[in-house]
């Protein structure tokens, strides 16, 4: 039985979808001849040809527009941003063209926009960002944040089959660090987008998180378990749609909640989730809704600074101890 990485799961998902559906094409910088900056598309050009694996100039707005046009004309493009930070250059095309077309004139835009997000690899402020909330705040775009190998595979396939634009944020720190048995990918049905999952059951505090922070939450849960504090850990898997029911069910059962993300604090999804809980389950709370997030700064470069920027298990442990006292 072979072990595969999160990165390989992404590669396999695209390969399988391109084999399954000739309408699926891939566009991006260096996706063809070079095989992708992280080699996730190595061999695709040879297999699928230059009309389906398209090396683009460094012009994110332009090739995102090309993908939208190709989607209008029957194809199902996957757009790769070499680093997700570069998606800022395509902001107008995504938020004004892709996101509003179905609502305005009924034209769906079945494109997937994917790329490496997140920090922890000492890549500095322009290769480490978490841009999800720009798009969560734009109605009309789904935002998917896989944390596991199986989800990296399954949710990408679901994104390709979706009839609407999907932003698929793959965390680069997970690329080669998260592994699973290849059998996990076999015979799995493609999961629906919009269903969160409880990754660990616990009775004292719910931690709501997504993407690479899942592993930090699980690490903290191990530490806290030794103190008799049991964390329940919810992996959101997607921010749009947001699985409100999963969150609220856990809050009503466990009564204390903490929201954890690598994104910066102000305007992060934690604020929105906190408001939902306050609206819908205030009477079920036995303590304040806590947020553990990155501070409101750009992602810094130096190791000492980046380590302080990205939430760590000790930050969760500290917050959990505080919450446990209520």
């Amino acid at each position, binding site marked *: 039985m072979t072990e595969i990485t999160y990165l390989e799961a992404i590669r396999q998902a695209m390969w399988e979808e391109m084999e399954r559906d000739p309408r699926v*094409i891939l566009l991006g910088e260096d996706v063809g001849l070079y095989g992708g900056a992280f080699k996730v598309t190595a061999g695709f050009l040879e297999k699928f040809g230059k*009309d*389906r694996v*398209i090396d*683009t*100039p460094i*012009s994110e*707005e*332009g*090739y*995102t*527009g*090309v*993908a*939208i*046009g*190709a*989607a*209008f*004309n*029957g*194809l199902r493009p996957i757009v790769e941003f070499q680093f997700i930070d570069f998606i800022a250059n395509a902001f*107008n*095309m995504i938020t*004004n*063209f892709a996101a*509003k*077309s*179905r*609502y*305005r*004139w*009924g*034209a*769906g835009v079945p494109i997937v926009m994917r790329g490496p997000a997140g920090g922890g690899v000492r890549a500095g402020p322009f290769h480490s960002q978490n841009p999800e909330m720009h798009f969560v705040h734009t*109605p*009309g775009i*789904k935002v998917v944040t896989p944390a596991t190998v199986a989800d990296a595979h399954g949710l990408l396939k679901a994104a390709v089959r*979706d*009839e*609407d634009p999907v932003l698929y944020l793959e965390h680069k720190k997970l690329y080669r660090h998260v592994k699973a048995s290849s059998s996990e990918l076999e015979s799995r049905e493609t999961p*629906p987008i*919009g269903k969160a999952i409880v990754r660990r059951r616990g009775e004292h505090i719910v931690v709501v998180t997504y993407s690479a922070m899942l592993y930090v939450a699980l690490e903290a849960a191990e530490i806290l378990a030794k103190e008799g504090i049991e964390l329940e850990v919810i992996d959101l898997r997607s921010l749009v749609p947001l699985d409100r029911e999963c969150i609220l069910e856990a809050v009503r059962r466990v009564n204390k909640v903490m929201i954890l993300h690598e994104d910066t604090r102000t305007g992060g999804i934690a604020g929105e989730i906190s408001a939902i809980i306050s609206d819908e389950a205030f009477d079920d709370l036995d303590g304040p809704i806590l947020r553990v997030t990155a501070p409101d700064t750009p992602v810094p470069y130096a190791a000492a600074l980046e380590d302080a920027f990205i939430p760590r298990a000790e930050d969760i442990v500290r917050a959990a101890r505080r919450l446990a006292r209520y």
Partner: protein
Amino acid sequence: MSLGKRQLHELLFYMILTRKLEESLARLHREKRLTSPLGLHSGLEAVSVGAAFVPTPRDLLASSLPTTGAFLLRGVKPVEIVLELLGKGAAPSGGRSGIRDFGDLGRGIVATTGHAATHVSVMTGMAFSARVQRQDRVAVALVSEEAVATGDFHEGLNFACVRKAPLVVVVVRFPSAARPGGAEVSQLYERARGYGLTALPVDGSDLLQVIQVVETALERAKAGEGPTLVEAPLRSSTRYIGSDDAMPAPFDEAARLDPTRSENETDVDANPIRRFERFLSNQDCLSEVERAALSARADDVVSDALRAADAAISPDARGLEERLFEPVS
């Protein structure tokens, strides 16, 4: 392209209808019954009608210009345009968009965001995907010269050139007083050459020239020769964007019907409708009776559209949050 008398009259009719409909929209705007930013330009009729006349129903068109005539030629009914701008429930967007261009892939129309050149790369994508799917389709994008100053324009065109996408981009240049954005953009030809892009000039006030040049551009695209830039300067244009602007130059029936009125040839050259009428008259292809009949027919169409749109009801607010995503089955 050889055109018979009936087709020539239809072309004239669509130019007259375009002008009359746009004048009515401007009046609605001035009366504050219509609040969407209009950005109308008289003098665009030849480009508007000419650029949409050549493409077949399979071809695709998008325009960030107030090219009402182009939409009419794609099969859009005048009432749809009025409904859209009045924000009525029966409007193509159901009251959700309200900008003058809207989309309907079934009629080969792609809605832009209204901004200068966002649609250039989208139309490049449609053209490119048509080529790789071996579809016999060309994408036509209409922009104003202000688009040439945007990154969108160049990113889209660069891709189209590299991939030999069957794309035609029509760039309209306005006289300085009517120029959107105010700033002058020059040397489009120089820029086109930098891309290895074929650029064809055309007098944007001359309908038959526009048709001829767009036909050439479409033939190049269909022959696999890649994109073409058509540069179409207008000789005259009046701009209407809001209540402080002048109305588009009125369609002056009294002056037109007055045989004693002497008309400056230069003025006629600059007015696409008068210019085409003069051409048809000189060819013994348009009598005064026929011209008056076309004008009256356009009046009737506009009146019917306004009446029907006025009587239509507002959208049901209960549908506000619908159609954001495809429903999950």
